[in-house]
């Protein structure tokens, strides 16, 4: 009997329920799909990089899943409470007919149980299906070929999904039961008869709040774009201020809305505009909080996805173009030792490894072994002014202010030898000339400004003229990030051997090492890295040199793993945020449509076109979906700017592409919910 009543209720309230059930199903499916990614990674990726990467990915996604479960839990609680409020009159009827509150809550529990069961069932089936599509994305993330495609079902993910959602539904049941036992018949009876009162907020207060909101947001924007160095420490404050500012902004806009619309008299009194405006105005004050939350979720989604995709694509391109050598090791003097005022020091890496009993040269075929030089006293002059030694020009310090790019000096022959190894263009210099080489975007910008004015450099006592009026793209160290903040290339005769600094050994594996690449890599990783660990400042604070090795394979691997990690985490959170935003708005607009059925009937009776009615509904639905999205887009401009220091190190050119991908994802999910709300709303108001 109870179950039949519950089933009937679910069936009856289908127009409200459909979007709720749909969202539950989507939530279950997403939860499963992303929990299953770890397993798929393991299946695809076993041979390439062992289980470490895939278990790291699984663990990260599992941790994120806890957060996602909380978000989805809040969404489900919100949605079910919202739907329950709409049924107060129904409950009142049950109570009038003599149903006890215990029976009512039992009925609600069985309703939740049935919808929960159904959504879990359908959601898991959909999830398993989607997860096969996801494996294509996993394969492309790990650059694996899809020939080894298998139909996979992850039982661990199924269990985790069931457990998580069972807990959420249990919480919903408890909260609903508590709400039911607190209901009073008199309140329930009167809840449907609320008179439609349009609250008008004090316009002066609204103006003041609006100004405060604008000021807070402006300050938050200022924080993230002005202080280049402190961006990260300011991130938290800026985000918090952004949230508060957004809430105040929506609060004041809700107060303004009607005033502004009324002031546009001509427009207001055209067609159904007055009706549309009044419809929006009658609910805008009740959605201030949810719109702010949605706006913030959209902001995070846009910023996260855009930067994650850009970072991933950038890293993948960098390992392809910026890691030309199979193996690289270097021994650099500790910055601390330079800071203490000691002169430049040099330590041969080959000898360093030999001291530990390793022959680093063994697997190498072609190689370049050289060192850079360090000149503390390098000085810059305006072009032509060097003869008089007036007009000193300050050298640019890199954004992170560790080095003066003009202090690090490389001999032309060393550099060109390295470029031959890398397969990149050689640099041509005549006597008495120098060139600056860098590849970090921020450094490039500063150096280009400096060099455009013409600058002479006094290196080891010799005055050199700049060969080019801008910096040259190039690097010594391999890596997935652009990291060359700049160095000077000079003709061989200029350097002072007593100022030798960082020692480099960069080369490709020989044929034998290539033939057994897996073993070579294993040997290099295990043995050489063990040596490196000794000199790492984390482990030894007294070592004078920092020796670091890396291989192309490991750079590629780490780029793939961290790229995949960022992509999946941001996609996971982004999709969940979008679903939550869309679901909240859809629920609200659909129930508004239900409430407004009588109004649309009136319009029809006085002769309004169906077409005009649809357009009005479209505008109303569009308003509530578009407003938070627009504000979020505006926020995101600054959010992405906040990520620029990181993006700059990767190469900024991928940002637009990844913004485009983000837009597609938003359009698909958020836009999908918009369409569902509009079409569902249309069906409701057309009735019958």
């Amino acid at each position, binding site marked *: 009997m109870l179950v039949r009543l519950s089933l009937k209720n679910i069936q009856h309230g289908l127009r409200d329920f459909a979007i709720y059930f749909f969202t539950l199903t989507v939530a279950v499916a997403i939860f499963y799909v992303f929990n299953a990614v770890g397993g798929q990674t393991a299946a695809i990726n076993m041979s390439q990089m062992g289980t470490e990467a895939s278990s790291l990915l699984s663990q990260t996604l599992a941790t994120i899943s806890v957060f996602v479960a909380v978000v989805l839990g809040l969404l489900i609680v919100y949605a079910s409470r919202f739907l329950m409020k709409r049924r107060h009159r129904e409950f009142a009827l049950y109570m009038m007919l003599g149903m006890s509150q215990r029976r009512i809550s039992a009925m609600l529990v069985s309703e939740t149980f049935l919808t929960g069961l159904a959504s879990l069932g359908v959601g898991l089936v959909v999830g398993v299906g989607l997860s096969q599509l996801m494996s294509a994305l996993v394969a492309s993330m790990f650059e694996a070929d899809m020939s080894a495609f298998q139909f996979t079902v992850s039982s661990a993910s199924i269990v985790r999904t069931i457990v998580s959602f069972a807990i959420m539904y249990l919480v919903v049941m408890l909260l609903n039961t508590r709400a039911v036992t607190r209901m009073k018949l008199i309140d329930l009876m009167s809840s449907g008869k609320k*008179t439609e009162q349009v609250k008008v907020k004090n316009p002066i207060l609204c103006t003041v709040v609006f100004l405060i909101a604008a000021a807070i947001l402006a300050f938050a924007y200022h924080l993230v774009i002005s202080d280049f160095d402190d961006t990260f420490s300011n991130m938290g404050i800026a985000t918090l201020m952004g949230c508060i500012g957004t809430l105040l902004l929506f609060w004041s806009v809700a107060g303004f809305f009607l005033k502004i619309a009324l002031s546009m008299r001509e427009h207001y*009194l055209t067609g159904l505009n007055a009706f549309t405006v009044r419809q929006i105005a009658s609910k805008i004050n009740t959605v201030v909080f949810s719109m702010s939350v949605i706006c913030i979720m959209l902001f995070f989604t846009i910023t996260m996805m855009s930067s994650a995709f850009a970072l991933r694509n950038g890293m993948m391109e960098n390992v392809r173009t910026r890691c030309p050598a199979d193996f690289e090791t270097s021994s650099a003097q500790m910055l601390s030792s330079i800071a203490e005022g000691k002169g430049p020091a040099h330590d041969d890496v080959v000898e360093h490894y030999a001291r530990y009993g390793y022959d680093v040269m063994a697997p190498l075929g072609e190689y370049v072994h050289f060192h850079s030089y360090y000149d503390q006293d390098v000085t810059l002059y305006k072009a032509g002014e060097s003869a008089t030694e007036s007009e000193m020009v300050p050298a640019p310090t890199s954004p992170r202010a560790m080095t003066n790019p003009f202090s690090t000096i490389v001999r032309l022959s060393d550099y060109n030898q390295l470029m031959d190894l890398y397969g990149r263009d050689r640099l041509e210099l005549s006597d008495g000339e120098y060139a600056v080489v860098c590849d970090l975007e921020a450094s490039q910008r500063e150096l280009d400004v400096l060099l455009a004015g013409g600058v002479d450099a006094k290196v080891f006592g010799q005055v050199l003229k700049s060969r080019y009026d801008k910096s040259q793209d190039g690097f010594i160290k391999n890596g997935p990030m652009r990291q060359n903040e700049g160095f000077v290339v000079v003709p061989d005769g200029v350097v002072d051997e007593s100022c030798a600094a960082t020692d480099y050994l960069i080369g490709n594996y020989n044929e034998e090492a290539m033939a057994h690449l897996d073993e070579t890599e294993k040997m290099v990783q295990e043995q050489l890295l063990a040596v490196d660990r000794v000199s790492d400042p984390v482990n030894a604070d007294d070592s004078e040199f920092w020796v670091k090795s890396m291989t192309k394979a490991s750079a590629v691997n780490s780029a793939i793993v961290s790229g995949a990690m960022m992509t999946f985490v941001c996609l996971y959170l982004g999709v969940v945020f979008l679903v939550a935003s869309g679901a909240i708005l859809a629920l609200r607009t659909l129930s508004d449509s239900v409430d407004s059925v009588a109004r649309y009937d009136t319009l029809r009776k006085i002769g309004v076109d169906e077409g005009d009615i649809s357009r009005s509904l479209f505008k109303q639905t569009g308003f509530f979906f578009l407003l938070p999205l627009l504000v979020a887009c505006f926020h995101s401009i600054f959010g992405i700017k906040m990520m620029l220091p990181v993006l700059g190190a990767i190469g900024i050119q991928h940002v637009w592409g990844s913004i485009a991908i983000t837009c597609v994802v938003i359009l698909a999910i958020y836009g999908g919910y918009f369409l569902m709300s509009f079409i569902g709303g249309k069906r409701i108001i057309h009735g019958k």
Partner: protein
Amino acid sequence: MNLLEVQHIEKYYGKRGSITKALNDLSFSVNAGEFVAIMGPSGSGKTTLLNCISTIDTVTSGTIALDGTDVTALKGRRLSDFRRKNLGFIFQDFNLLDTMTAYENIALALSIQRVSPNRIDGAVRKVASQLGITEVLDNYPYQMSGGQKQRVASARAVVTNPKIVLADEPTGALDSKNARMLLDRLGHPNRKHHATILMVTHDSFSASYASRVIFLKDGAIFHELTRGADNRKQFFPKIMRVVTMLGGELSDAR
């Protein structure tokens, strides 16, 4: 000149085997400027008739012509166009939009006809003063009395200068004082601007404001009364006599 021409209309409900004839070969006509009341017991087909004329419902057979246009042949966009331009509606339950002020409710009837916004204000204020609702123009429906609401609804119906105003039990939800005030005011534009009114009512008192009363029974015309030179007080007992003739079946008549 006949503004409204109703000819041999029939309306059947239900399927084969259990057919209800709501309207049974009904014919009558209304002249421009007339105020016609339609009376009849519950189930006599009054409201069905009104719904058919107002194009909310369709007839099974027969034709309804308004100013030469056969409304039974209209469909879709042309139908709502027709309804907007030629008909004004007054409902028993007012059907005001609760989110909008009285002013906006009245203005809406004009703005959906694409009347230019600067002409709306004058038209709204004029009709509001005729109906005595100028002081409640800025109020929302929940801030008005039933009588005021119905006068606002009437203002919305006549502001567009429709060819005919269709009123379905306009006084049904009002007390007698408010009903009188409404009918007085409604009669006002009727007399001066020759707006034609067709009103369905089961209240003899309301009907006595009309210039002609048509009595329906079982979907057909039972009787017809014309006021002629009588004043309202003389007309009322004549109506009552027919109502009594209709017997207990019009028991809900006042």
